[in-house]
């Protein structure tokens, strides 16, 4: 990624700040058990065998803000080794929000794809 320019970085950062909440909510929405931050980060990493879109450190404030708005709930559990872990679980409101966010995401994706398609079609002509 050494060739990434500042403008690319900025663009990626802006995209991520909008999608991070959707990604995290969806991971927890699919999870059968509560997960802690590192587990979520690992899950996202192993799912996608490509460059991680955003830094894992940026997940935590997003998790916290979703907990504050009632989409997630959490509890701290001591671990055998190392510091206690905070386990997050999606709430009922979180599931409902996730459904709506997925629709919005599909609309946005469809819209952007159509426009991008149009741009490449125009170039071919």
């Amino acid at each position, binding site marked *: 990624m050494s060739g990434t320019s500042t403008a690319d970085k900025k663009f990626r950062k802006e995209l991520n700040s909008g999608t991070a909440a959707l990604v995290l909510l969806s991971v927890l929405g699919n999870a059968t058990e509560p997960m802690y*931050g590192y587990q979520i980060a690992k899950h996202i990493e192993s799912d996608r065998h490509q460059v991680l879109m955003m830094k894992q*450190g940026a997940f935590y404030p997003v998790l916290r803000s979703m907990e504050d708005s009632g989409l997630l709930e959490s509890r701290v559990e001591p671990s055998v080794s190392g510091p206690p872990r905070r386990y997050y679980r999606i709430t009922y409101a979180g599931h409902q929000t996730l459904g709506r966010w997925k629709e919005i995401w599909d609309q946005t994706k469809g819209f952007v794809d159509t426009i991008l398609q149009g741009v490449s079609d125009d170039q071919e002509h």
Partner: protein
Amino acid sequence: MIKSIDEYLVLLKKELAGSDPAIIQDALSDSEEHLRIALDGAIADNPGTTETDALRSIIEKYGQPAEVAGAFMELEARIPIGLARPAQKHRRSLMSRFFGVIADPRAWGSFLYMLFSLATGIIYFTWAVTGMSLSASLLALIVGLPFVGLFLLSVRGIAFVEGRIVEALLGVRMPRRSLFSGHNPGWWGHFKSLVLEKRTWMALAYMVLQLPIGIIYFTLATFLVTVSLGFMVQPVLQLVFNLPMAHIDGVSYFTPGALMPLVILGGFILFIITMHLAKSVGKMHGALAKTMLVTE
């Protein structure tokens, strides 16, 4: 080149300098949790690797202190705190600001806090004084040290809970994670950090202080509300049940009919003033709690 988790945390704290102390505490404990788990995992997977090498690739994924600090500061600005709503920016008239307090969740939150503070004050004070005297007397025996440790641990737990109450009712940002310090330092390490850290003793002082403060808050709140409610309903009671305004030395004093609306209005205005007072008390107490219970 960051060589240890402690070094990372120091750098992160530096990046967050000037932010809300509670955000700093949250960012530090979230980062410490992640980095320790990741480092333990990396060393277990590759026993040959050094801590520095493992940390390099972990931080590559987790983010440099500046990036993580940026993420925390950016999102924190958007989070609503407890009951509090962002202060309204537009100018309102003097009258609507005076009477508007009746719909202000901060004023009601502070008022509730003033009522609760007597109960929490009694509990904190009793717990602190009992714990301190038992600790002092048991120190002569071998069971003294574990007892002191458990007692100080409970003080930190109570300080955390009090922080949550303060945030919910007074709208002052307090830590949302209890901070653990050091990686598995063992019993003795935990004990030493409990005894040596300033915030343990500040929290203990806060617990003792909460009793006199709670008595003052509770007395003020109940006295003012009783008096204002009394004024508001007195004319009604006088008209319906012929109850006097006051009964002194066998003489009953009644409110003259013409003054009745004024008495009701007076009671109402006193109630509004009480809510304003509660709001200021809440603000002051929030600042006090933040100073005594949150340390970077």
